[in-house]
């Protein structure tokens, strides 16, 4: 679905989740999210990088330069311990929220 607007917090959460498995560079994160959501969620570059930098500022991820699969210089992001904790909390909240919303939507 094009045009679905993501809440900023949701994007952050998904980025953290993506990085929970392995360190990735920005492009890879966007691709991973798109693939995992079966092309439903397309992350705009204009939202992705600001989100990444904010996460970095908050100390939830750290970044370092590395070499990509095509031998090019790329910046890789890695989850920190604080990031992992934040991911748990965010997932928890999100689940609660999703359950509550679906309950409301099911009542007639």
């Amino acid at each position, binding site marked *: 679905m094009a045009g679905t607007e993501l809440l900023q917090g949701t994007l952050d959460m998904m980025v953290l989740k993506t990085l929970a498995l392995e360190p990735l*560079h*920005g*492009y890879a994160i966007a691709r991973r999210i798109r693939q995992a959501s079966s092309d439903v969620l397309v992350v*705009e*570059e*204009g939202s992705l*990088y*600001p*989100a990444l*930098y*904010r996460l*970095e*500022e*908050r*100390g939830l991820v750290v970044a370092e330069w590395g070499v*990509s699969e*095509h031998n*090019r*210089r*790329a*910046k890789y992001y890695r989850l920190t311990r604080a990031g992992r904790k934040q991911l748990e909390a965010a997932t928890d909240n999100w689940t609660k929220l999703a359950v509550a919303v679906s309950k409301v939507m099911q009542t007639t």
Partner: protein
Amino acid sequence: MSWLTRLRRYVRDALRGHRLANEIDEELQFHIDALVDELTARGFSPDEARRAARHRFGRIDRVRDEARDAKGVGIVDGLRQDVRSGVRRLQSEPGFAAAVILFFGIGIGINTAMFSLVDATLLKPLPFPYAERLVDILEVQRKGTAEETSYSGMSRTRLDDWRVQRQIFDAIEPYKKARRLTLVDGQTSVSAARVGPELFPLLGLTPAIGRGFLPGEGDDHDVVVISDGLWKRAFGSDPRILDRRLQLKDVSAAVVGVMPPGPAFPFADPPVEAWFPLGAVPDPGDSPFVGVVARLRPGLTPASAQPLLDEAATRIQKARPNRTPWGAELDTIDPRWWRAANNSMVLVAFGAVAFVLLSACANVANLLLARTSNREREFAVRRALGAGRIRLARQLLAESSLLALAGCAFAMCAALWLVRVIGSVLPPGAVLLSVHQMQVDWRVLAFALGVSLIVALASGVLPAVRGAGQAAPTLLTTTGRTMTRTREHRRTRDAFIAVQVAFAVVLLIGSGLLVTSFVRMVGLEPGYDVRNLLAVSVTLPEKDYSDLPRRQAFYDQLLETVRGVPGIEAATTGYPPASEGAGHLVPEGQEQHPESGGPAAILRAGPDYFRVLGIRLIEGREFSISDRAGGAPVCIIDEQAARRFWPAQTALGQRVRYSPLVPWITVVGVARNVKTSGAARAIDKFAVYLPQSQDTQLWATSLLVRSGRDARDVAAAVRARVRALEPRATMPFSGPVEELYARAWVVPRFGALIMSGFAALALLTAAAGLYAMLRYAVTQRTAEIGVRMALGARPAALIRLVFADAIRPVTVGVVGGLGIAAWLVRFVEASLYHVSPYDPLTLLVVATVFAAVAAAAVYGPVRRAIRIDPIVALRAE
């Protein structure tokens, strides 16, 4: 992240801003490349892939900006950006920028300059190291309860008596008043004084080159110390100055020292530039009295030294009996007598500066507020596009700071330049500026700068931050402005205008009063004929004239000689009415109530005095031969004294005295009032005339000469006659009698000028503010006016519409200003001369001036309103 880590990163990022920006670019570029690769792999051609990637990526600039913002990239970099865009913005609005900078210049620059002037002449203490311990010793002759007269200056024997009182003074030195000498070239005049050898150490001054005087040099007139100014002027800053001699017309002396630039004691106008040593032995031709400056022992103040002084005085008198009893008091050596008299002047000066500063700040604030409110729409749009609030605020801050800095730079230059100009243009007239050089007062400058900066930044940034914070949709859905914001802004603007107007009114009234007072003082009829009236004061040397008859004979002979000078219509001797001598006049029977009398000028009158001066007698007679030395003392008093003491009867035959130390004197005549002094007083002194023939002192008197031509031409001839008769006679003053009055006018004129300067500034600032506000209002209401005109409104109605905006704040301001002025006027009351603080004429003039300026301010916007083309106006909506 801990705050320490955050701070470290912050600093690191700030310093590495540029590198970080590059890193972001590199990262984004990698992303684009990866995208291109993917698209190519999917089958796009490289070109198409690249185009698609770019397209997908959106406007890379925006992304980059957002990324940078999120990272808080490079303070320095961001700052540079903001500054650049700020400069561009301001360049596109030159009028606005110029106006703000101008008001900075006025508020800070001119204000500071004027305050520096006031500071130098009024506020700063004497610039000597021991200033608070330096005193003059007055001899006070006291009798009874309240009557006393005090004299400055003393004989050398008295000086030695005081020198011994080491428990009071740790140094005491004599000096002689400055005199004007001429250099050998006959043209350049130099003000020179003779001072005791230890005077420089007493004052705490040391010569910059060479030395002061040695103890033995007192009687040696072959040495001189010169000022820095004279060294530059007459010797071209010759580094071998100590080998040179100062060649004057009558005297040549070796230069032994050069004083650094700074105050010159004794204070004189023009300032003293050459010091000769004063010896223990009086020169022939000297009066026996010397001026004295003493330095109190550390720890003593004039108040705490008084008991010691009294004790010492008693002791000295016991050692020298057979003299009239006297006491001693201490006086300041500061020639700025108005400082003691008028402490309220200080408050007035500060008040005026504050008013003008605030007024200018109000204008700056107004301008900035108006501008930011105009840009609200722009902010709303940018917010909708995703710009951060902080980002916007930062940009505004940069713009405001630019303006503020430019304004401050301009203001500082203005202040420095003005101070220099004023310093060189003002006649060092009067001892006003011989005490302090004019300098920019850095405290005031810093204070004004600080205040203005705060005002500029606050009014430039705050409203924008607030406005930018508002939800974007609200602002965009209306036609660009919300009513509530306008009203709020209007109230602020109104308040500013009202305050400015109030300040301007207060200052206008103050200056109006001072100007009127000065004009009255100057315009006051002297009461006698001052045209072409010359006064030459003559003082006899002590040697050869110790005998009173001898002195009388001299002056009689002198008068005869002078009457023979060609061009002279009439001549007499005596004291001109503007003389300094004073006593306290009381009528007989009232001596227990000194307040029944009043201060009086004591004027000796020689033969034909009243006729020569043109002073009319309304009762009784002039002095005549019958009023001889040793005969019954007689006097003539002036009208106001006569009416004050004996309102119901004639004054003739009554008796008065001007001091408890003299016998009662019979009144034989009543003269018209004359102007006795130029000083600002609410009541003029009485005048009491005494016959010169009954003067028991007669060391000095003045020749009063009426010439047919300009008095100056005759002056030289008169002086020549005096010197021919007695070469050792000194003539301290020689010039038109009017000059004697002018000396006392300097301060009131100065005060009036300064105050008017402040008032003009405040008025202009208020007018500018009013103009800007009205213009803005007209612009805002263009549509409304257009509609009204289309509906057939006449110009008169439109004018009323425009005025409505202005009337309220202006009225409030005027009323408020009048109220404040009524309360504040007490501070200038002491300086007013024959002017009531509620003088109706002054108020009328003030009202007219204000109305005229206000009308000029309003004229432009009104014209604009009338000429609005309704069609254009409506379409613009």
